[in-house]
């Protein structure tokens, strides 16, 4: 087999893995957009905030320590205990549910019926707010996140492919775990939305607010639930990316990676997010591999967008988006 083709296969596989991570972030967007028509720009900051909270709880950091120290002249930083990862994750989920409740009660219940662009802006405001709160609460250092996920090259795949192609493929263990978790998450979400009472209510709301309301579905509850689930998805994405690079500000920028995925897959489709993520992941990696060296590299940031843009010209609602029917 020619060497370039083997390399391309390796790039392809890694693109798939990266795509799963993008899809994970995109999933959070889709959930909220589907249920409430809100394009939640704060999803990236939510990932950052939840990961920071997780680390903070695990290390027993005192929230707002810096502010407390400045105001009261004290010198507190840590409670002096550590919390096991699993318990900390549960506590973080609780924080995200609380956050969802607050967002619904104080922001979006006042904005019901507004135009989509206004709702979008509100989430940008929310992103700023959360960014400031997150840094004040847990400080802006880079935090090492270790919840016991494996990392590094997968030996088995390396050896196996080496025997076949004479070149061992590099697949990161973390990516494999991420893929598994993402698959579980999507499976769980599908089961939840298809078979549970709340899930059905959620789909009813997504279909038609008014009709759902008239058959007795509590919109408020559904929206809080959707934001909580999105918060949980953000936490999972935060853990994956945070393990890789440490928990720090840049985590909030992963939202930008998810936007082309959304365009491609359609804003309202969960399978769309997954497929879109895979296409973007593979597409940008293969492009960087094949064309990148000719144009000087670092093409990944814009290529995803251009790919999605070209795609949209032919299918304006994305792969799995609802068909846009316009009437006068």
């Amino acid at each position: 087999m020619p060497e370039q083709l083997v390399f391309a296969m390796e790039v392809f596989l890694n693109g798939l893995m990266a795509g799963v991570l993008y899809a994970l972030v995109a999933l959070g967007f889709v959930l909220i957009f589907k249920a409430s028509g809100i394009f939640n720009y704060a999803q990236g900051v939510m990932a950052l905030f939840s990961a920071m909270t997780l680390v903070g709880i695990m290390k027993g950091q005192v929230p707002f320590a810096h502010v407390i120290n400045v105001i009261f002249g004290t010198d507190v930083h840590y409670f002096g205990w550590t919390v096991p990862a699993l318990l900390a994750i549960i506590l973080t989920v609780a924080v995200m549910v609380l956050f969802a409740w607050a967002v619904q009660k104080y922001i979006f219940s006042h904005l019901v019926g507004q135009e989509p662009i206004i709702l979008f802006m509100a989430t940008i405001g929310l992103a700023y707010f959360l960014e400031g709160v997150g840094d004040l609460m847990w400080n802006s250092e880079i935090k090492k996140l270790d919840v016991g996920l494996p990392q590094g090259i997968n030996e088995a795949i390396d050896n196996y492919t080496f025997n076949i192609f004479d070149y061992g493929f590099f697949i990161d263990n973390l990516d494999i775990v991420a893929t598994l978790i993402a698959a579980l998450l999507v499976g769980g979400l599908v089961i939840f939305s298809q078979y549970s009472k709340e899930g059905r209510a959620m789909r009813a709301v997504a279909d038609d607010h008014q009709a759902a309301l008239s058959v007795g579905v509590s919109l408020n509850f559904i929206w809080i639930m959707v934001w909580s689930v999105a918060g949980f998805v953000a936490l999972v994405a935060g853990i994956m990316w945070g393990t890789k690079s440490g928990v720090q500000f840049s985590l909030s920028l992963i939202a930008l990676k998810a936007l082309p995925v959304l365009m491609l897959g359609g804003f309202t489709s969960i399978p769309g997010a997954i497929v879109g993520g895979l296409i973007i992941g593979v597409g940008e990696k293969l492009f960087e591999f094949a064309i990148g060296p000719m144009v000087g590299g670092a093409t990944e940031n814009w290529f995803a967008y251009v790919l999605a843009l070209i795609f949209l010209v032919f299918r304006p609602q994305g792969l799995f988006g609802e068909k846009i029917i316009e009437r006068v």
Partner: protein
Amino acid sequence: MKIKLTTMALTALMAAGPAMADLVFPSLSYRTGPFAAGGIPFADGYADYFTLLNERDGGIGGVPAKLIECETAYNTEKGVECYESTKDEGALIYQPLSTGITYQLIPKATADGIPIHSMGYGRTSAKNGKVFSHVFNYPVNYWDGASVGINHFKKQAGGSLEGKKITLLHFNGAYGKEPIPTLEALSAQEGFSLNTIAIDYPGQEQKSQWLQIRRERPDYVLFWGWGVMNQVAVQEASNIRFPMENFMGIWWSGAELDVLPAGDGANGYKALQFHNVGSDFPIFDDIKQYVTDAGKAAGAGDQIGTVLYNRGVYAAFLAAEAAKAAQAANGTKEITAAMMRDSMEALTIDEAKMAAAGLPGFGPEFQVSCENHGGGGMAAVAQWDATAKTWSLISDFEASDSGIIEPLIMADSKAFADENGIAERCN
């Protein structure tokens, strides 16, 4: 429209003249934004050194140093606002701590007659004092860094880089592209083949780049990164089992926080430094005694001895030494920015001065002159020990290959001089 009127009313309020009593050192720091983690220790070190001088010696030559901190968030517009809001307070020197802000301040500060010291960043060709009268980048610049790094690899390879493959992995922006001309010239001279791989901001995702490195198997990798890029690069290098001792970062990619998240995998990673690392210097005892224990530390006090904190201390030390020299040369304690500039141009840092300040062997010895605003271009290589969690210098401060760098500096500064119609000085 009404806002304009309010603005004017405020203008009248703010126009009151500043007091000139203290020696003013503005600190354009960034404690927020994408690079906060790197900006905080530097700002703390810078502030703590001046606090120490004030607490222990009563200032510089008896005049208290006044530090005005202004948050830039690494954002060029905020940097401009910071500059304008502090320059009328009698600012003696600006250390913008961002290449973008440095570029903006070069014309502004030159026109206002305030010196800029961009230590290990900023415009490399500012080394040519004939063109850049108010800009200093001693003791070292990026092109020196590239050259010292290559020299280190050369030694490591047993004296010759003939036929070796070296990859430059760099931030896709002004800062990351700086070393490319130097490396190209060096590649022609030393006979190694050079490949450059760019990473776009922010650099959270570097799989493509590292897969490429894994395929091409370069002998050595030089790395110009900043922010999250650093942590991810070190992590990915350890993931693909790249031999860490062949992987070297510039000084902005070589702090504790860059390697700690990768754990043991980062062991052996190298980085260039232009000052010493660790907390084993007398000054840190003084800082503990007079600053931290007195509750006057700028930060949490846990950063002492880290690479970036030390760099902040070093920057403050160089500024304070120049101020001291200016006081001595002019026979007055209340120096101005113009005196500061003259004194920076005649600055000599030797072992005696460093030892007197409690920093023996902390940085290279160097001299600044009218033609040479960049010092000796000496840098050392540090290596990370993941078990002990410490950096340590594994080489002396070594000079760069000035035969390669000088012509490049002359060419770039000449282009700037031509574009802006600047006549050469020092003739």
